[in-house]
């Protein structure tokens, strides 16, 4: 363990490798010749081909993860196992994977003398959503109302444990990334399910400001963070914002405003009878008050800007989903054409 961290990561461990983000990050890392080994761990076998990434079935909630880290002399851990979708079972299980899994993993990292760098995927959801928040969050801003439930709360706790590790192992380079909502062809989150509903309910009287991150940009950020030293906490979101109303118009989705109280009932009905994922309290608050983060610190640190801003990331998602027909706008086009007007 040298005082000066070496430039390149040699043995990288990626958690959550069987989900879209983990698989893509592992693929990006193994393409780099300076990385000797990429080890992917998850509880279920990967769905995407992983190339030269070595897959190990291990539950990070168990001490077995420490064995993997020591025996392979892992020097870089990329922790992407934050579960944001309660699809794997009840909420309790999700919390256990997020929090207990992180605790076990960090305990193993603290013990290992080979460890040099830790990259943790967190979420901008740690800022919560409330009407008393500043319009734009920088990394130093405290939320007016910290999230009280769901994966957002888990992310807050995960960040707490990461800071604890940082105190005990000041020699580690720790990068913490607070990502805005991911969008992309492979992304399946409560948000994408919400947008795919046949008629999208919005909360009456609310039009939140939203930000998106294209998955390609997310993978690039994580790749750079893994291969280079960028210690600190960074917000990561596409430039610009979209209002929910604007996003739904761009997607050409039929939408109907619903009072906030009925929204919860509607979500429960959808979950019970239509196999939808319902509306978690944090999703509902996000649909009311939205959230915007300032990712200029990340851009300055990496000397790089996301290739997609929030609007183009959303348009890309719309195209991949085959949405985007907008009958009222097309009608207007025909009307304008008939009148001989210039568009």
């Amino acid at each position, binding site marked *: 363990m040298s005082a000066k961290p070496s430039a390149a990561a040699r043995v990288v461990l990626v958690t959550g490798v069987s989900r879209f983000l983990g698989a893509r990050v592992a693929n990006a890392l193994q393409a780099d010749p300076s990385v000797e080994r990429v080890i992917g761990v998850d509880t279920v076998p990967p769905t995407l081909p992983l190339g030269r990434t070595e897959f190990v079935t291990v539950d990070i909630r168990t001490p077995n993860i420490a064995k993997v880290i020591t025996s392979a002399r892992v020097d870089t851990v990329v922790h992407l196992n934050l579960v944001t979708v309660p699809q794997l079972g009840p909420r309790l299980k999700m919390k256990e994977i997020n929090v207990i899994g992180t605790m076990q993993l960090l305990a193993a990292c603290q013990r290992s003398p080979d460890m040099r760098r830790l990259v943790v995927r967190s979420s901008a959801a740690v800022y919560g959503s409330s*009407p*008393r*928040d*500043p*319009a*734009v969050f*920088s990394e130093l*801003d405290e939320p007016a109302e910290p999230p009280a439930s769901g994966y957002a709360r888990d992310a807050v706790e995960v960040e707490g444990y990461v800071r604890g590790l940082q105190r005990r192992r000041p020699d580690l380079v720790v990068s913490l990334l607070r990502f805005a909502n991911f969008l992309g062809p492979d992304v399946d989150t409560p948000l994408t399910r919400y947008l795919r509903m046949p008629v999208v309910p919005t*909360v*009456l*009287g*609310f*039009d*939140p*400001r939203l930000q998106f991150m294209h998955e390609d940009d997310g993978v690039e950020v994580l790749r750079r963070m893994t291969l280079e030293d960028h210690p600190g906490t960074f917000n990561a979101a596409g*430039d*610009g*914002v*979209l*209002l929910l*109303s*604007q*996003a*739904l*118009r*761009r997607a*050409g989705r039929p939408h109907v405003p619903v009072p*906030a109280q009925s929204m919860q009932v509607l979500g429960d009905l959808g979950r019970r009878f239509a196999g939808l994922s319902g509306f978690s309290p944090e999703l509902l608050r996000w649909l009311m008050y939205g959230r*915007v983060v*300032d990712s200029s610190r990340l851009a300055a640190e990496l000397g790089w800007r996301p290739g997609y*801003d*929030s*609007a*183009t990331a959303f*348009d890309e998602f719309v195209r991949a989903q085959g949405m985007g027909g*907008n009958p*009222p*706008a097309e009608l*207007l*086009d025909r*009307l*304008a054409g008939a*009148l*001989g*007007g*210039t*568009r």
Partner: protein
Amino acid sequence: MSAAPEPDEGARIIPLGNGYRPPPEPEPDDRGSFERGVAAGLSFLRRRMSGDYPVDEFGYDPEFNRTVVLPPARLLFERWFRVELDGVENIPDKGGALIVANHSGTLPLDGIMLTVAAHDHAHRDLRLLGADLVYQVPLLGHLSRKAGHTLACQADAARLLDKGELVGVFPEGFKGVGKPFGDRYKLQRFGRGGFVETALRARTPIIPCAIVGAEEIYPKIADFWPLARLLGLPYFPITPTFPLLGALGLVPLPSKWMIQFGEPVPLDEYEATAADDPMTVFNLTDHVRETIQHMLYDLLLRRGTAFL
């Protein structure tokens, strides 16, 4: 129809986000003005329906503000309150500046009138800092964001000033807007001077502003506080017409308004640490407050009777 952009509006559109295409330059054609109006209206509707318009990170939608919020406000400004302006040249053409004004009128119509004044006569978009109550109310909060305003907090104010925006603040807050009619034109305490700190940090000038006329639109003669407490409001006003005449009591009385912008108070000579020196902040706060109070007395004399 009012959707047709005004001729001098072309340069006022600020391209903010990516993905925004400025509307194509209208080609010189020989069609009648009616047809051009229809075409412009259709293209406006199409832009709105396909979500193809820019919104900044505060949720400000300049096109929405220009076409939906400002026209009715302008009608009030010109016809109902017959606002007279003074010192508009004190608002800089560009760059950050903080307008500090007195607050009155039970309902904050003075903010809306100030927005019209800045937009139509100084050609600046005024970004007001509003009470958090505004942002907790459905519809109102998001309407306010679309009109360019945001929550009164140091982070937002600093971010707007750093972007070179014209920011407006009413440091009296609810103490000013909800004061009884008997206390009209008596400035209340100016908060804790947070606005001075923010302006000092951003090194932007403070423009004192006096608004005369708003006090008389809803003369608050009593406060039914039990109901206010029940509804979670800072006050429940009783005016000569409200709640006596029901919804009709919400029509503001047609008082004569005057708005004066004073000489900017330059802050760029202060040290960077001045914002952390409470004495400097207090002195500047008092100076701004005194200036506005004098301007108010001055304007009141010039205006004469309230409703003619």
